[in-house]
């Protein structure tokens, strides 16, 4: 069909919201309905890791309503995503199942990295100037209820992206009792966040020159700066002015002035203080508030997948750049990685019919290669385990937790013995069959490619892969001694053949 409708639901930490979009190849996408409901799921989950029964009831009611609203616009596909409020639950799977049984809505929990990747997609989606902007130092600040995300761009690529657990709702809850006794609430917040802030400055910002600051507007920022936002730009003077006008006021006064609910108003000061402190360390002159949300990102992502939208920017590349930067931080050999990547991709591309994997898996393979020996930084003796741990502990923007798990496992089995599914006594990695298969396939390719550059000398200058019936011929082009590589390859070949069920023949390209 030429036109279709799609609903995006965000089960956020202080608000549950839905947007319904219409997609057409001609006009891209437009918003039909935007509905929001204030529900502070984060209140329970940040402090106790559980949701109150009443809150679950309320959430179910809202989702039922949302389903009705979807029908009003004939929506057939939707995506319901939860963010930090669900990530911090002790029992998210149980709650999600309950909600599904009661409403028929299946909530997926976005990892922090996915969430912010979608958010950042939504900016790129509405603003063509974005590409130009990120040629120079640019910071994206996304203040949520549970956490905030700060991403730095330079020379058209993502430099780093960090999540800090200092969202407005979380701060409010943590300082609730203290705030009552302290008249300088703003200073209290400043002190509370200072430590994280200086750490970020020292480790990531360094002396990078930030020219642009983009504030990801959720409702709150949009409302606070309603008056300044005609052009979507807030100058520093405007910001300071508003800041001074705000921080001393009580929730009641703010609610009245901003025409918002008192519950929202209680989040205003934490949000303001966070923003101010970041602006200070960025030393930014003005802030751009594009006014987009996760919901727009979800829509953009849907439109991209369904080919309603042609992307202007290569988002996958950002993921790769981000992982390359991680590898760099752990001093992985750049040349070896590049060499291995080429080999792995050649193998991957030559046997698509055999492995049945697609472009997303190809990306995962690339990242696995990038990070396959990052553990060396910690211990040369226990690279596999250390790499695994690093990957499991590092957020990679744009990747879900599951995807990161797959990569971490493939990296681990690259150099240690592969553990078969049945033998896996639950080690907490929680791989299901589907993901297990993927790990096996990626491991097989990674092992092979890695072994071909065992000496890290990039002796293999060219590799040609030819698939003939059930036989894959790898023709290696090298004019150096590759006996080390060939020798080590033997057991890798065995595993490869086991995983894909084909014969692998290694040949050296004959010299003329």
């Amino acid at each position, binding site marked *: 069909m*030429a*036109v279709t*409708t799609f609903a995006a639901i965000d089960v956020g930490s202080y*608000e549950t919201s839905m947007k319904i979009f*219409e997609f*057409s190849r001609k006009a891209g996408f437009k918003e*039909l*309905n*935007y*509905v*929001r*409901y*204030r529900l502070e799921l984060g209140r329970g989950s940040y402090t106790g890791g559980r949701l109150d029964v009443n809150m679950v009831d309320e959430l179910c009611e809202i989702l039922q*309503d949302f389903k*009705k*609203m979807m*029908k*009003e*616009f*004939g929506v057939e596909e939707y995506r319901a995503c939860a963010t930090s409020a669900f990530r911090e639950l002790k029992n998210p799977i149980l709650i999600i199942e309950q909600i599904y049984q009661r409403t028929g809505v299946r909530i997926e929990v976005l990892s922090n990295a996915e969430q912010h990747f979608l958010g950042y997609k939504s900016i790129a989606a509405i603003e063509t100037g974005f590409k130009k902007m990120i040629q120079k130092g640019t910071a994206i600040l996304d203040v949520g209820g549970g956490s905030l995300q700060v991403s730095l761009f330079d020379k058209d690529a993502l430099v780093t992206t960090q999540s800090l657990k200092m969202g407005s709702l979380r701060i409010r809850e943590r300082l609730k009792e203290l705030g009552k006794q302290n008249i300088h609430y703003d200073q209290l917040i400043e002190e509370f966040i200072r430590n994280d802030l200086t750490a970020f400055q020292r480790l990531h910002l360094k002396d990078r020159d930030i020219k642009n600051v983009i504030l990801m507007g959720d*409702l709150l920022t*949009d*409302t606070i700066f309603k008056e300044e936002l005609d052009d979507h730009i807030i100058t520093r003077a405007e910001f300071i002015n508003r800041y001074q006008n705000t921080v001393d006021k009580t929730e009641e006064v703010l609610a009245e002035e901003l*025409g918002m*609910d008192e519950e929202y108003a209680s989040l205003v000061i934490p949000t303001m203080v966070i923003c101010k402190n970041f602006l200070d360390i960025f030393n930014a002159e003005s802030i751009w508030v594009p006014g987009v949300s996760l919901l727009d990102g979800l829509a953009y992502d849907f439109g991209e997948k369904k080919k309603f939208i042609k992307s202007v920017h290569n988002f996958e590349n950002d993921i790769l750049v981000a992982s390359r930067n991680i590898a760099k931080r752990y001093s992985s050999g750049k040349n070896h990685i590049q060499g291995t990547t080429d080999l792995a991709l050649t193998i991957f591309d030559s046997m698509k019919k055999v492995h049945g994997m697609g472009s997303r898996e190809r990306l995962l393979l690339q990242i696995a290669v990038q990070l396959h020996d990052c553990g060396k930084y910690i211990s040369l003796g226990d690279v596999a385990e250390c790499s695994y741990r690093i990957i499991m502990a590092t957020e990679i923007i744009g990747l879900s937790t599951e995807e990161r798990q797959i990569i971490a496992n493939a990296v681990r089995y690259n150099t240690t013995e592969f553990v078969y599914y049945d033998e896996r006594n639950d080690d907490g990695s929680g791989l299901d069959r589907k993901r297990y298969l993927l790990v096996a396939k990626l491991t097989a390719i990674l092992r092979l490619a890695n072994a071909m550059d065992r000496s890290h000398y990039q002796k293999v200058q060219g590799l040609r892969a030819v698939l003939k019936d059930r036989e894959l011929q790898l023709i290696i082009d090298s004019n150096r001694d590759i006996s080390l590589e060939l020798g080590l390859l033997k057991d890798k070949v065995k595993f490869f053949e086991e995983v894909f069920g084909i014969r692998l023949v290694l040949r050296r390209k004959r010299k003329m």
Partner: protein
Amino acid sequence: MMDLKNFEKPEYFVNRELSWLKFDERVLSEAKDKSLPLFDRLKFLSITSSNLDEFYMVRVASLKDQVHAGYEKTDIAGLTPKEQLKEISAQTHELVHTQYNTLTRSLLPLLEKAGLHMILEHEELTDDQKEYVDRYFEDNVYPVLTPMAMDSSRPFPLIRNKTLNIGALISKKDRKKDKEVLEFATVQVPSVLPRVIEIPSGKEGVRAVIMLEEIIERNIGKLFLSNDVVCAHPYRIMRNADLSIDEDEAEDLLVEIQKQLKKRQWGEVIRLEVEDKMDKRLLKILKTEFEIKNEDIFSISGPLDLTMLMKVYGLDGFDEYKTPKYVPAPVPAFQNDKDIFQVIREGDVFLHHPYMSFDPVVNFVRQAAKDPDVLAIKQTLYRVSGNSPIIAALAQAAENGKQVSVLVELKARFDEEHNIVWAKMLEKAGCHVIYGLVGLKTHSKITLVVRREETGIRRYVHMATGNYNDSTAKLYTDCGVFSCDERFGEDATAVFNMLSGYSEPKRWNKLIVAPIWMKNRFLKLIEREAENAKNGLPAYIRAKMNSLCDPVIMSALYYASSCGVQIDLLVRGICCLKVGIPGVSENIHVRSIVGEFLEHSRIFCFCNGGNEEVYMGSADWMPRNLDRRVEIVFPVEDESIRAEAIHVLDLEFKDNVKAHILQPDGTYVKLDKRGKALVNSQMEFCREAQEKAAGNKKQNKEKSRVFVPAEPAEDPEEEK
């Protein structure tokens, strides 16, 4: 911002209750108007009476509450609740006096001449008639009567609010003391029987009617067989029985009264109407039992409760004494066999009721219910007619699998029970019924239809100034607009999100919505005119509404007037603003049109430096509309519709037949018509609507040779 301090003095304002009484006087002046057909005058007299009843039940009751709560804050005109009640009592007595004067001195003699004999006292009956009414009593009345007496063992019975009763003194023998004692007895005039009964006149060409209470009075002896009836007289009470606190009150008062709720005297009698000839002893008993003061007693020389005159109006025949019933004209845009959605796609459509038919609005919902491409229908319902075709269509739509959401306002005054019944019915049919927001009455009138079309989702919106009530649409003047402009569609969706309890949208495209946004918007529009006037640009405000009593808006209007803005207002009912105060309101003119139809539309026109802006909607300039209700006002941007809306204002400002002009002394006078061409705006609109419809039909006929089927007859007008 405007500095309004100098314009907030109490002497600049009129108390709203007293202004309301002025409105009832204007209705009464229609009853006195000799140029009107006789039966129309009866109707107007009846309306003054039902108006007054409602006024007592709601407003006087509320003032009594305030007095009981010890609330002494003054109103905008500087009057305390006590002072207001005193003034109201004086003025209502005067009003009632005029009512009965009008009835007995002008209308009854004229009815006599017209061949209708209204028998006010059973003593006037002829022998034949006596026999007829006695039989009528035995056959129909006696079985449903419940006489009740009061004596040492039986307390004073409960007399129900607003019912008509006959009180009697009966003489009983006290055996112990061996002497006659008087006892009180009472019987309710049954409301299940018609109040006005036609009886044989005995004369050719003359018809006769008598009131039910007279028949009962004549036969009252039959109810107390063993005793003598010393006297029997009708009486009627009004109680403070409104369960809710009137929404018109100020916020702090609501809090105050809520605190004092316990002290509130439930069911307190706030008005007693008695026949003026009532026996003093009987009156004394009533006074004592109802604990009522003299100023709340109305001694009446004539039949009590004149709302029964509506029944007289409804008698068959006498057509030459009634204005012929107006049949609404078809709406030109829909005089074709095009699909209603197609017509709306071709351009916005303007409706002006009752001059134009309300059918397209009903059809809009009906079509939507049937149309396979329609996904959802959403509508706000405030007051609907008894057998509403809209409700039926909504139920049908839900059965057809559409998503139907209906906002039912249960808090609509006096309609609560009625509304609950059909709300339940809609729920049963599968509609999603929303019962509005706590603390806010939903008064907006909007319908949204979501349709899936080839080019994608399209939203059709109907926005109006009047309720979705096919009956009152024949009596109330209202405007409506159909549009499929996406900006209105998006706003309409947001309105319904809000009404379902979801957060307000970040911004509105077009609609101006109360409570949060509307008042400031109007103030800004008024201020803009003031600024323009100061800068020497043309500046005027022309607005039409039912009531004007918001203090801030009024002060802003004074300010604008003092800056030189020309302000012309059409305010049908309450107007707390004064005209002609030097330096304050010399540029403000107010007129009120009271005619055949009830003026109900709200139109607001601002000069905007020559680039006129026109708005329409559901809100009056009253605190309750602007602060405590969900209301919608929408801009009229379509060129031709804007012209029509301006034409409505133009014509009503030219009216010199039904318009009453507010004077600096607070009175309303009609224009001197001598030597002027008469303009009766309502009749003019009727004529225009008919002409347009006829012209359009003719055009259509000339274009194609299709025979035009006759239009089905309209449903008989339902009585209010």
